[in-house]
């Protein structure tokens, strides 16, 4: 009896312990009041003293940014030209700067260190003049000049110990400074897109100017540059020896820094890039106002954060919340050199077998934009490409006369999301938000296409290949990164399984995932070979040229889908010599879009949706759907576009 009572007591104790732990996890956000934070130094309410960060800076003067690269293994390495240097913990955002930067919303190249667009000195684009801004200085006070640019280009093209030498050497014939603000570059071959060579298009530029007065005394192939010399508006203040955070301080002479000179003073005095660990901890930190700017989180985490923190803001105030203008596109790629993916009918059949509505809901709860063409459906590109081709898409016929396009997908999605507030009712607005449309979900037509090339259905309802074997497809999916693509793979596999294909998704870590694509050691994968931010997508699409096709087993420099198309290659060749502003660009890219649709070497599905929220407790002024002055690409090198727009809220 005594033992029984004791066991009951133990059971009750265990239940109480578990419940209390669960309850504490579910407790509404305490909206941590800095004044009551027992870990903060005691502050007098009446003096209005600010809460301090652990790094010793006033919290209300510090912008805390999520660290994309995670913990940095060697936090004292700031050489941009050796592998292993972490870029996204502030180094390329606020310390370095590019000659030109992309405006992610409009697609324009904006001179940053340069003073104006590059000028071609001859008709074949082998000689260029770049005029730099005057009055710029490095963070150590030394004057920035054309000598730094010319020296860096020359060094890159002559230093054989650098990994990038193999690229720059064949390209650069000479680079010289003709005066303090003018650089003349001679190329070994025509290069009409010099601004994208020495400037940034997506994420960052391959070219970073180095301070000649520092680097000419060192070996650039091994010099770690533990204290970087910055041309950007911030300089390194402190770094965690264990790589968990990097602290940058606004330069006193910010007017002489890149961005500062052209855009004005960035507001945060300090910028702290900090790694909190798993997504759960980042959300907790955001709920406690210890993180202002988030890198990518899942829609589920966003739901938790917005409920715990009333100051948390996403791109849209309501559904779909996410920004859908990330310049890459998600879908399913194939190794088209492997049967049966070498057959057009099979690729089209797989597109028509995909229930794209279910895939959208399963991947990101419908918070994605449909895209049937290979150019990402950015707000700035849709009018030129997606909507411009709408009639063509509607009238597109396959070989048997079948019309595969369904322009009503956005309307259908909105209807299925009837419970969500703020969704557009106007069909045009629906398409602008959720895309121009996609392919019909038509298993019957898909079956017809498969049967036309010898596929049969077995007695169990599953598809058999022309040689009578069960048709199995494995879709490579990224594990633990690029969540959207990872989930997409599983959702598509599920859709194809319902169609009768034995399809599975295989989650892979980064190394094997990319190596498999490079070597062609895959049949299908949730890769993203379609990117672009400007109307001129040449830099992103050139990799599809047939000249890059190599046999499976060899690492492909480009065209990892191993797709040989004379039509696509010819169009790329026609794009190659054109300047980015040439009026022929858009019509040629549309011809490319048509070729990609008709030949379907890969199945584009959605634009990329990014949940990259901000906490507006300490800082406001972040771009959003109501004030889309820039894209929320905090990890790109053009992050300073946002810094000068931020305002402190005054909260302590």
């Amino acid at each position, binding site marked *: 009896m005594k033992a029984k009572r004791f066991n009951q007591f133990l059971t009750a104790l265990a239940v109480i312990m578990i419940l209390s732990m669960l309850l504490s996890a579910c407790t509404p956000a305490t909206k*941590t009041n800095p004044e009551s934070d027992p870990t903060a130094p005691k502050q007098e309410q009446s003096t209005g003293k600010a809460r301090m960060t652990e790094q010793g800076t006033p919290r209300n003067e510090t912008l805390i940014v999520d660290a994309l690269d995670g913990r940095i293994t060697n936090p004292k390495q700031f050489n941009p030209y050796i592998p292993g240097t972490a870029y996204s913990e502030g180094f390329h955002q606020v310390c370095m700067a590019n000659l030109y930067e992309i405006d992610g919303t409009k697609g324009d190249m904006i001179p940053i260190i340069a003073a104006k667009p590059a000028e071609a000195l001859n008709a074949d684009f082998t000689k260029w003049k770049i005029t730099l801004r005057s009055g710029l200085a490095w963070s150590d006070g030394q004057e920035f000049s054309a000598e730094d640019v010319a020296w860096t280009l020359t060094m890159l093209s002559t230093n054989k110990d650098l990994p990038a*030498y193999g690229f720059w050497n064949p390209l650069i014939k000479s680079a010289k400074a003709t005066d303090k603000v003018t650089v003349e570059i001679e190329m070994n071959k025509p290069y009409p897109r010099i601004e994208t060579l020495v400037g940034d298009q*997506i994420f*960052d530029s391959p070219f970073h100017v180095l301070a000649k007065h520092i680097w000419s005394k060192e070996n650039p192939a091994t010099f770690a540059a533990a204290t970087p010399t910055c041309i950007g508006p911030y300089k390194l203040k402190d770094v965690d020896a264990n790589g*968990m955070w990097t602290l940058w301080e606004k330069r006193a002479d910010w007017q002489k820094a890149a961005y500062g000179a052209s855009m004005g003073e960035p507001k945060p005095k300090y910028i702290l890039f900090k790694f909190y660990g798993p997504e759960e901890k980042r959300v*907790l930190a955001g709920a*406690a106002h210890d993180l202002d700017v988030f890198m990518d989180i899942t829609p589920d985490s966003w739901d938790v954060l917005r409920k715990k923190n009333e100051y948390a803001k996403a791109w849209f105030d309501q559904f779909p919340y996410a920004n859908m203008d990330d310049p890459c596109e998600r879908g399913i790629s194939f190794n088209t050199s492997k049967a049966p993916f070498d057959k057009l009918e099979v690729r089209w059949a797989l597109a028509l077998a995909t229930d794209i509505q279910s895939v959208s809901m399963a991947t990101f709860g419908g918070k994605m934009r449909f895209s049937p063409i290979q150019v990402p459906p950015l707000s700035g590109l849709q009018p030129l490409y997606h909507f411009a081709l709408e009639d063509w898409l509607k009238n597109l016929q396959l070989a048997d006369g079948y019309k595969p396009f369904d322009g009503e997908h956005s309307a259908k999605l909105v209807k299925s999301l009837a419970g969500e507030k703020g969704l557009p009712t106007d069909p045009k607005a629906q398409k602008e938000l959720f895309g121009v449309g996609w392919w019909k979900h038509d298993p019957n037509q898909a079956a017809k296409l498969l049967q036309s090339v010898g596929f049969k259905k077995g007695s169990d309802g599953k598809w058999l290949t022309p040689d009578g074997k069960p048709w199995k497809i494995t879709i490579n999916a990224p594990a633990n990164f690029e969540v959207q693509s990872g989930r997409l793979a599983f959702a598509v596999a599920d859709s194809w399984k319902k169609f009768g294909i034995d399809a599975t998704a295989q989650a892979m870590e980064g*190394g094997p995932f*990319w190596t498999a694509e490079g070597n062609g050691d895959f049949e299908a994968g949730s890769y993203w070979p379609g990117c672009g931010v400007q109307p001129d997508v040449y830099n992103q699409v050139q990799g599809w040229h047939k000249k890059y096709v190599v046999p499976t087993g060899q690492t492909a420099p480009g065209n990892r889908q191993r797709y040989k198309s004379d039509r696509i290659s010819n169009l790329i060749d026609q794009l190659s010599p054109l300047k980015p502003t040439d009026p022929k660009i858009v019509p040629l890219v549309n011809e490319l879009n048509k070729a990609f649709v008709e030949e379907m070497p890969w199945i584009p599905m959605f634009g990329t949706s990014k949940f990259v929220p901000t906490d507006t407790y300490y800082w406001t002024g972040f771009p959003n759907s109501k004030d889309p002055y820039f894209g929320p690409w905090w990890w790109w090198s053009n992050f300073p576009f946002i810094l000068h727009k931020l305002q402190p809220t005054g909260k302590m």
Partner: protein
Amino acid sequence: MRFLVFLGSRILTFLMVVWIGITTAFFVPRFAPSNPVEAVLARLDSQKSFQPEQIQAMRESLMELFGLKGTLLQQYGSFLKRVLVSGDFGPSLTVYPTPVSTLVARALPWSLGLLFCSTIIAWVLGNSIGLIAGYWKDRTISRILEGTAILLYPIPYYILALALIILFAYVFPIFPFSFSAQGQPFEWAFIKSVIRGSFLPALSMVTVGLGWWVISMKALASNIMEEEYVYFARLKGVSDGGIMRGYVLRNALLPQVTMLALQLGGMFSGALLTEYLFGYPGVGTLIAQAVLGSDYNMILGTISFSIIAVAGATLIIDLAYPFLDPRIRYR
């Protein structure tokens, strides 16, 4: 003489185990479906800032830079020569050109500090509690202690760690979200920040480890209590304390010491989950990064330490056992 033969054979076994382990660590990653050059290039390519020709040119340069040219046997030969002659594992391939030894030297003290303290605390506490529970197994206190251990033991580490973070860094913000050492090493600010930052990870590891030691020691102690020599000691009038220390503990401790030695040897592998969840700088993260980035040199450097430590711990236990248990002789 017998001892010398025993010592010689154990040392030879130790060296063979280390050699086989390091050789396996050398070859296995090279058969994996990724390599460090592709890992670096993939990261660059995913940014869509580089053109195909640039990627191709960098591939050639990186193969040369990373020392991946030549046959596997040639690479193995140069590796052995470098390691045996100068103890140099080469540069990390993901954090090129930082030497592997620099990175390991930076991370290892943190792993050793955290794991050593938490392992010893869990071992001492767990065995003490287990001994009491086993000695007075029919008493209420024993049941409470055993029940608590059984309750804690099966909790998945990830859940426990997150619960501690939620409770003590968010709901009651006593500790920081992530570990961060402030100030210069060995100054008071540094020591304070290390203790504060390490408390939660240590608590999580002690909590998880405690359960196993309590349960195992309780089982051992309960069994030993049934031995005739314990009855004899009681009949002789030896006190409870004397029986517990001299008869039960001494006999129950032997397998626990073996397990402790092996756990201490395992410190050199770090604690990946702990480091990831608490933002703690340690060897576990280095190993994970090395594996994910196919960083051959770092894999070898970190795993070699672990192999040597575990093999060394086994060797030490083998040599020390006869001192702990006079019944055991060298053979």
